[in-house]
């Protein structure tokens, strides 16, 4: 998998999927992309981010431009950064089979259409990133941090 944006959504997505056998081959943040086809050590990346550093400070990988994460070949591509990162003009650069939209409206409508025609499965943002909303609804109904839900 490759994750664009290694903040709250990106780190948890990577950790969750890695626990189920996925290998993180690329991650990006505002300052660049780190690429390691053999697999990145997620805990190390999270520690870097927690200390205010960038994923590009990771020692064992190829440092690329921020947008180079779009070109990384992978089975699962996770946009977890900002809106409109994949558009009609760059959708052809994605080399993946499955997109899980962690960010809000990360793809434009025409980009989603083009990928659908190419057979790339793009699971929409409000299906995949609803965790925060579900948690807020539960808290509104009385759930608290004393009884954390998964």
């Amino acid at each position, binding site marked *: 998998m490759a994750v664009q944006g290694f903040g709250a959504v990106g780190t948890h997505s990577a950790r969750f999927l890695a626990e189920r056998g996925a290998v993180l081959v690329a991650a990006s943040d505002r300052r660049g992309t780190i690429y390691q086809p053999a697999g990145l050590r997620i805990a190390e990346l999270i520690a870097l981010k927690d200390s205010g550093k960038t994923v590009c400070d990771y020692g064992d990988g190829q440092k690329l431009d921020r947008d180079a994460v779009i070109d990384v070949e992978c089975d699962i591509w996770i946009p977890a950064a900002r809106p409109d990162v994949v558009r009609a003009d760059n959708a052809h650069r994605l080399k993946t089979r499955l997109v899980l939209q962690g960010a809000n409206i990360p793809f434009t*409508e025409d980009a*989603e*259409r083009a990928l*659908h025609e190419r057979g790339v499965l793009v*699971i*929409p943002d409000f*299906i995949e990133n*609803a*965790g925060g909303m*579900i948690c807020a609804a539960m808290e509104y109904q009385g759930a608290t941090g004393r009884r954390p839900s998964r």
Partner: protein
Amino acid sequence: MIEEKVRANTEAVLAAVTSERLAPRRAAERMATERIKEAMSYRRFSAF
């Protein structure tokens, strides 16, 4: 709870994509609209 709901919603979207050959966003929007309509039917005002 979150895992259960996200999983169920994803499975529902994938089922519509597979059986009706819909684009995932179309399937997801339809599912969301149906749920909103159902929820609104229990109120005295409606957005529809």
